[in-house]
């Protein structure tokens, strides 16, 4: 059977996370995402230079609402973010880490920007993988801690987020000054995703330094909706719309593990995380932030298989 091939006009931009010594940082390698010239894994239509990458999620405080299933793997290091990060890298071969500074939230410990910046500096010494740094979700607090962490990691080309339409200026300015990349979050809405990219690039940050967080839902919790929004955005990107041609980051772990199914059984949680991630890489996800080491391993193997098709 003959395959009808689509000819795309534009590729997704390539975002580089992490900087090696030669590039002015201290990471032992860099992670590149994006660059697709086709829809996911349709190799005959175009090149996919970089496979989707899975980041391990690490918190600055012991999470109170994580499943006991995850306790089995991280319980011993929950109270020590540095040890937690190191375990992910050494034991589970994490290629990239996603540090969520939940402890800065006024309701979760209210850590100061100095404390968080110090933690990030220590983390840079502890591990040499590229870093994703997330705020606590409280706008005014994030506007304090994220600039501090941005400064503390100057030159390391981290990925820092999230910028939202109501609060993007402070973070964009920091990221711009310190040479990082930014996560632009939109509420499952292609228009807002585009608008936020335009607003951020209007401030001088190149579109090639933006990663879109399209906001996702887990299987049965809005996955199809997220899927179709990502697909629409990606189709627009490949068809020539520069303003939406950014790689996607998807917070799969956080969504999969808050489902009722995951709360009922750890086994189900693991499957839920895998299925959600599997679906989303088909929608165009470039970076997936996940939790269960086994789920991550399964995904990495699956991605290898998918990418192998092209070889």
């Amino acid at each position, binding site marked *: 059977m003959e395959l009808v091939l689509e000819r795309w006009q534009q590729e997704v931009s390539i975002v580089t996370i992490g900087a090696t010594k030669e590039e002015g940082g201290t990471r032992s390698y860099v992670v590149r995402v994006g660059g697709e010239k086709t829809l996911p894994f349709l190799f005959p239509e175009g090149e996919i230079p970089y496979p989707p990458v899975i980041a391990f999620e690490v918190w600055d405080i012991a999470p109170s609402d994580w499943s006991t299933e995850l306790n089995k793997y991280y319980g011993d290091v929950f109270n020590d973010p540095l040890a937690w990060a190191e375990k992910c890298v050494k034991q589970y071969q994490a290629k990239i880490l996603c540090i969520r500074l939940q402890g800065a939230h006024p309701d979760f410990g209210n850590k100061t920007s100095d404390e968080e910046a110090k933690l990030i500096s220590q983390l840079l010494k502890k591990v040499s993988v590229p870093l994703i740094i997330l705020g606590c979700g409280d706008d005014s607090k994030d506007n304090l801690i994220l600039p501090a962490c941005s400064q503390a990691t100057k030159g390391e080309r981290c990925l820092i987020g999230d910028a939202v339409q109501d609060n993007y*200026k402070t973070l964009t300015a920091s990221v711009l000054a310190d040479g990082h990349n930014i996560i632009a979050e939109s509420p499952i*809405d292609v*228009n807002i995703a*585009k*608008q936020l990219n*335009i*607003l951020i690039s*209007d401030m001088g940050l190149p579109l090639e330094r933006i990663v879109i967080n399209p906001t996702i839902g887990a299987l049965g919790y809005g996955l199809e909706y997220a899927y179709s929004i990502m697909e629409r955005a990606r189709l627009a990107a490949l068809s020539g*719309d520069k*303003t939406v041609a950014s790689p996607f980051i998807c917070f799969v772990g956080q969504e999969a593990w808050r489902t009722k199914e995951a709360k009922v059984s750890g086994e189900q949680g693991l499957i839920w995380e895998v299925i959600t991630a599997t679906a989303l890489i088909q929608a165009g996800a470039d970076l997936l932030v996940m939790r269960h080491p086994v789920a991550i391993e399964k995904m990495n193997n699956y991605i290898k298989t998918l990418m192998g098709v092209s070889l």
Partner: protein
Amino acid sequence: MEKFKVTFYPDDKTVEIEKGKTILSAAISAGVYINSSCGGDGVCGRCKVILREGQVLTQPTGRISLEERKRGVYLACQTTVQSDLEVEIPAESRLGMEGLTAEELELRLKGLYSEAEEIEPTSSVLAEELFVHSPLASKLYLELPPPTLEDRISDLERLYRQIRHIQDIAIMQTGLVNIRRLGELLRSSNWKVTVTLGKRNGTTEIVLIEPGDTSKKNFGMCFDIGTTTICGQLVDLNSKKVLGTKATYNKQASFGSDVITRIIFAQEADGLEKLHHAVIDSMNQMIQELIQEHNIDLNDVNCILCAGNTTMVHLLLRVDPTYIRRQPYVPTANFVPTIRAAEVGIKINPRGLLSCVPGVSSYVGGDVVAGVLFCGLDKQEDLSILIDIGTNGEIVLGNKEFLISASASAGPAFEGSGVSCGMRASKGAIQKVGISPLDFKVSYNTIGQVRPRGICGSGYIDLIASMLGVGIIDKSGRIKLEKHKRIREGEGGKEFIVAFKEESDVSSDIVITEADIENLKRAKAAIYSAASTLLKHMNLDFSQIKKFFIAGGFGSYLEIKNAITIGLLPDLENFRFIFVGNSSLAGARSILLSYEAMKKANEIAKRITYFELSVEPTYMDEYMGALFFPHTDLSKFPSVSR
């Protein structure tokens, strides 16, 4: 029930009212106008009054600041009378139209209407030049041969015969009143009379018979009955000359600022009656003023032609508008037969006629039909579009082959309602704005060249375009400028001061808030996306449209370039846009002056199809995409994006 006297200043009008009634209802009884966009719900904060003396009870409201409270400011609709009162109505709560000098009025009207006359005859077709002059009411001076034994036909037949000598008129009607007077009238006037012939639903009627030659005195009025503004024009039906134009606020505005709230109000006890009287009073007042200024006898005003949206026409005729807002949105009548003006309480010649421009549907009325007629949209060779930037943003797309309309509920932001310092395009309105990129100094121009009282639609368009240009706001409309004497934090988010109170004619700074920008953004998005959705529905796009007729009560000024910068209008060459001002009034005048135009309007109303946007699934998506300056899809605005 205990009654108290309430005196309003500066009008110096006193009314007696029952204890416990609101100050607003006292004002209405006294015939004193106080702004009230929300119809007395206490939400709009427009009805601020200052209590000079007396006791009141008031509801707590966020619309009055602490400083205002100390000065004795109250919301008239939330404050009840508890003793004799002396109440002052500050300038910002007053209607801008009353008590103006003739010159001021002249200036105002110039601002409101000059543009319609300034259309290039080459680019637009002035309808009245194309239609045969045959006004709704015409006068014929007749010298009848007196009856003899050889020529013994009746007086009435004699009259008909003489008319037929001059005009070939097939059918005629004559009221019994005229017949009763006829015998005596013909003889006492020595068989020299003037008949007024009225065109009435395809037939011709002898409206009036007068002794002698009065054929030179034949006048008519055309009206644009808008939701917010009523405009009237006195026309010499013989010479086609416009003698005078007036505008007044639709007094129905005190019962709610949009058609839906008014339809709801009409269902209340006496609601329909009140709304009907509000519009009739405004019209009668305008007629009175115009005939006095031009030394014309009321009896020589023989016909009225009204264009208005469907709801306004229903209220004018005192027809219950209830079903307009109930599914499946069917009005009582789109084509209203010509009636006698007196039947609805309009004071002209007691036998004078009143006709309304036919409408298309519940949400596309005779004002749109009149606009189409005036622009000649119905006979364009090339694809053209009429966009009326009003509360109900009506759009008609087409040419001589088809006409399709859509209606976008844009909200009243461009008419200066629902925005903190908004006002209509009347005296004191900032209509033109520029901002210096160096120090953000604002230069502006007001209607009437007086101190500013607020900002009107064209001013807002300029303002937002300039704020974008110099980087005060970002493309989503948020104020990004910080730490500047013109930036401050208000209740509705950040505010930018356009005019400081020292330079204004009101007691506070004239500002634009982030909430205002959001409102205006929604309004422009509704209009742009309605037009683009309609085009998409027809498998067309903006670039295929040769002429854009832009209508609206924007005063004399609308900067097309800035309207494109904010994404209200599509990014196309300037020459394609033709600003026609109040096309509804102009169309009504054409019809008043030509029965041909009336027939054409009937045809247009039947030809226009209506496209319901709310059932079109892509409309919401188009709208969301348009909620950005100029648009989320920057490729649609290449001249605006860097």
